């Protein structure tokens, strides 16, 4: 999943992009939680709901920071400026599997947080506007904390055995 960087001219653009990144992550985690609920994987459903909740809190914080700026409208129009890729924290829905475990979910999350960290680091390093640079540096700190948080969570969920996807009654054998 490539992440081209949309043009950021001012603080409002940066906040809109940051908001969009979090909102996209909420959408993806919610979709994954719904999938797991539908397929009776309740443990994983809870993990995805927690991840969606955490990203939602970040999105709300950015909305608060923005005050009167219409972030949702601006974010929606900025979406088309990611023509060759998705926003950094968008989780690849295609990587989901009906027998996946919380370890797999956290791996997806970790990859997204690392992409977001790299994204904001790049902005902080290249931004010309001082306010954008300062705010991007704050987002870098936050994303670094999120990466550490996922690592801490991974201690609770060790890597499953290689046979995790083995299904005694696989769907492809039902023909």
């Amino acid at each position, binding site marked *: 999943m490539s992440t081209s960087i949309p043009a950021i001219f001012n603080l409002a653009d940066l906040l809109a992009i940051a908001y969009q990144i979090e909102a996209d992550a909420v959408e993806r985690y919610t979709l994954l939680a719904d999938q797991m609920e539908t397929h009776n994987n309740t443990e994983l459903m809870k993990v995805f709901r927690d991840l969606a909740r955490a990203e939602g809190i970040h999105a709300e914080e950015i909305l608060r920071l923005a005050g009167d700026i219409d972030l949702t409208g601006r974010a*929606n129009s900025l*979406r088309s400026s990611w*023509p060759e890729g*998705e926003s950094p924290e968008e989780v690849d829905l*295609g990587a989901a599997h009906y027998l996946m475990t919380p370890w797999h979910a956290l791996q997806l999350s970790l990859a997204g947080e690392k992409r977001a960290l790299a994204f904001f680091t790049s902005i902080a390093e290249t931004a010309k506007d001082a306010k954008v640079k300062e705010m991007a540096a704050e987002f870098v700190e936050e994303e670094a904390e999120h990466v550490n948080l996922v690592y801490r969570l991974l201690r609770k969920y060790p890597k499953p055995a290689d046979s995790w996807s083995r299904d005694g009654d696989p*769907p*492809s054998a039902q*023909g």
Partner: protein
Amino acid sequence: MSSVETRTACKPGDYKSDIKPIWCPGCGDYHVLLSFTRAFAQLGLVPEETVVVSGIGCSSRIPAYTSCYGFHGVHGRSLALATGLKVSRPDLTVVVASGDGDGYSIGGNHFLHACRRNIDMTYVVMDNRVYGMTKGQPSPTTEPDFDTALSPGGTGLSPFHPLVIALAAGANFVARAFSGEPNGTASILAEAIRHPGFSFVEVLSPCVTFRPDEREWKNLMHPAPVAATGDPGKAARRIMTDDGFNIGILYRGSRRPFQAKMGATRVDPAELEKDFAL
């Protein structure tokens, strides 16, 4: 969609219904749903003036997952339904969703004639090269060597080539997209809806359950190396010789869309019903 009023206030989430999809985890159709909602938001479509019509199959569940009007129709007949709808209500934006089985086999004949008629609507086929809902039978786009318990030794048949067939039959817009890139797919869908006449978008959408090999598609996709052409001969040559994984708008025609001449007097549906009363 030139006649449709648009507004900009809708967000992608506004086009989603409260019904949770029941596709398999990892299915490409989840991404296609995201692309639908993003394209609709990009265009600022009014949900109650937008209709998603489908046939039968995994992909055809999509109308229920949107907040637009929807019609989950009969197997292979989504284009027939959509044609009737668009002719009688040209003010609506009509998007038709189908799969490779529903669209190219059971609905193959309707596909040809919908291209030929060039009515202003958008046809999105989610192609996973297998009948997923009925547990993995080969479809018209399945490779000849797809060797499974249901097709021992493979079918040995040449796959259907939907893009070049659409072009030959008269489609006014032909594109290929990949579900794993929902923003790119949304932009193509938005272009297809904007373009007058019959727009055909084939979305390669992996079936991870019956075609787990299709998880690799994301590593094969690449942007179309050339810009869209309005020359059908050139487009046909490109499509026939490409590797099947280049994505983008491949043909953008300028044929005038069909518009039905509506009679001056409209018949009250209650009057029509009398003829069918038992």
